[in-house]
């Protein structure tokens, strides 16, 4: 009997109900085990000794300082890398120059290098026995085991995040829009703000969110350059490790829950912003027929 007679669509290759159900179940299961369960455990453990114990754990001056340091690092590193990412993506996608591909590779290096290697490299560049160490020492500038070192390490690790989100999109969009804007008399700056940026804003936002999440969560590179000084150069991830090694499990999980909340909030913020953007579009399309109706009235 043919599909038209039975009223059932013949399954496409690999699209039978059994395959579909198996795949969906598998994805849900893996997601639950690998992502959801650990997240739940963090919060369960954080509140295992009750709310007051949680508050006390968070309220420790060292923990508060770690949160503070993490936020400050993000506030410095994320804007710098956003600017860097936008500039790099613009250069790579809107201009032809020798070494363009090489630049893309260089931008991506931090993705493939272990963060701890980056940290050690910074040690050799800015450390006392390092390249600029003596000069920095003479000028009384402290980079390692202080905020500048932490920011530098974070910058290195998260350098590709924004650029990597923007480059494929801007490559796909081509140069027509920018060329059109320029031929209409717009300056490069004006073209960037009123043509390029609005068309990549969601990719940019996503890149910023990822960059922020990584800056706040970075462990390897920062642990090498920060020196792990409690209450001074410990960021939140380093502090969590410290608490954990001190057998302060509840404290470690409480701090971890803060980091998790920061991450979840950034993701939610991103989704909310996207919704608002999408909503504005659809509202316009709903309004459009009215425009014609008004136009037709005498």
């Amino acid at each position, binding site marked *: 009997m043919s599909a038209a007679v039975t009223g059932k669509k013949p399954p496409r290759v690999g699209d039978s109900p059994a395959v579909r159900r198996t795949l969906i179940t598998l994805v849900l299961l893996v997601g639950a085990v690998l992502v959801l369960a650990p997240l739940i455990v963090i919060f369960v453990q954080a509140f295992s000794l009750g709310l007051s114990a949680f508050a006390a754990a968070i309220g420790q001056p060292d923990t508060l300082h770690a949160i503070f340091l993490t936020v400050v690092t993000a506030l410095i590193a994320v804007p710098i890398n956003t600017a860097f990412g936008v500039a790099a993506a613009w250069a790579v996608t809107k201009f032809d120059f020798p070494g363009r591909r090489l630049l893309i590779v260089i931008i991506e290096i931090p993705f493939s290098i272990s963060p701890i290697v980056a940290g050690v490299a910074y040690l050799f560049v800015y450390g006392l026995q390092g390249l600029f160490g003596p000069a920095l020492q003479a000028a009384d500038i402290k980079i390692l085991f202080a905020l500048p070192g932490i920011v530098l390490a974070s910058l290195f690790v998260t350098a590709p995040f924004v650029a990597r989100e923007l480059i494929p999109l801007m490559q796909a969009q081509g140069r027509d829009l920018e060329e059109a804007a320029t*031929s209409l008399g717009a300056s490069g700056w004006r073209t960037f703000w009123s043509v390029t940026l609005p068309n990549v804003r969601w990719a940019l936002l996503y890149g910023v969110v990822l960059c922020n999440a990584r800056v706040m969560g970075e462990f390897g590179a920062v642990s090498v350059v920060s020196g792990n000084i409690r209450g001074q150069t410990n960021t939140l991830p380093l502090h969590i490790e410290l608490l954990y090694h001190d057998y302060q499990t509840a404290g470690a999980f409480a701090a971890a829950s803060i980091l998790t909340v920061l991450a979840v909030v950034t993701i939610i913020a991103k989704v909310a912003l996207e919704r608002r953007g999408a909503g504005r579009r659809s509202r316009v399309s709903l309004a459009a027929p009215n425009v*014609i109706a008004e136009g037709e009235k005498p």
Partner: protein
Amino acid sequence: MKIRLDQVVKTFDTFRAVHGVSLEVASGELVALLGPSGSGKTTILRMIAGLEFADGGAIYFGDQDATAIPVRERGVGFVFQHYALFPHMTVGENIAFGMKVSKVKRSKSEIAARVDELLKLVRLEGLGNRFPSQISGGQRQRVALARALAVDPKVLLLDEPFGALDAAVRRDLRVWLREIQEQLGITTLFVTHDQEEALDLADRVVILSEGKIVQEGTPEEVTRRPNSAFVTRFLGDTNRLQGQVGGGQVQLGGTAVAAPGIRDGKADVYVRPADLEWAVEGEGLSATVTRVIDRPDHRRVLAKLADGTQIELDVPPETRVLRGDIGVLRVHRANIFAA
């Protein structure tokens, strides 16, 4: 504004190169740059716009050397093949963009009035608040034109303006573009690979091949007197026959065609399908019909000559001809080039 190109050169690693092109476009003229892909026609247009810089030669706008003037200050209106409308702006905002960024300051009400005027010109009244994604391809192309015209360009440049549209819309827009161009009297160049479009629309057609101009002239000149086999083939369907020239005539097994001014010896004879006539008997090239294709305005007959050459000819719709029929072909008109 008159445009003059003097020995313009552009070298690329790829095929889009331009080798020493000189060209003059009179003020108010509508000129088509016609050529197959890779002939350098878009590169020439982009160099005139200033979107690409020439490696050699000069481009003049009027008497001014414009070769080094950046696109922003060149005062050209450029219409892109895929429209390049700003997707996040409404149709009205797209059209207003050039006026908003201009050094000539205009008040908001002035800009709004001009946008309305342009919407009327391109017959899109009432669509000013739509987004580009909410209008059709033909409408988008008209918005792109209105946007280019908003800054009062001295020259209008269009890159394959109708390339992405379907045939019916394309024909309508062609007629309409011609009307607007005549109304505004603006010097216009457009690029196309479609000979019909070039011949329909342009005052003058410039035919390019491999980065060089191979022929330029009015549509009548290039169609009636193509100067090369390439132009003949490129402008439309044609049959190629081989013949022997002698005494001002070319002999084509069984028939002869006048060949004035062609040197004696071998020659290629190009005959368009409509320039062949079908007859059951008499003088001509004997042929066997292999297939008949019916089209709205004629019948296309595919036939085979005695030596196996495939021939296509168009006959009136009422002609009775069947596959397997044997008859003769009479040549009414031909373009002959010494081989």
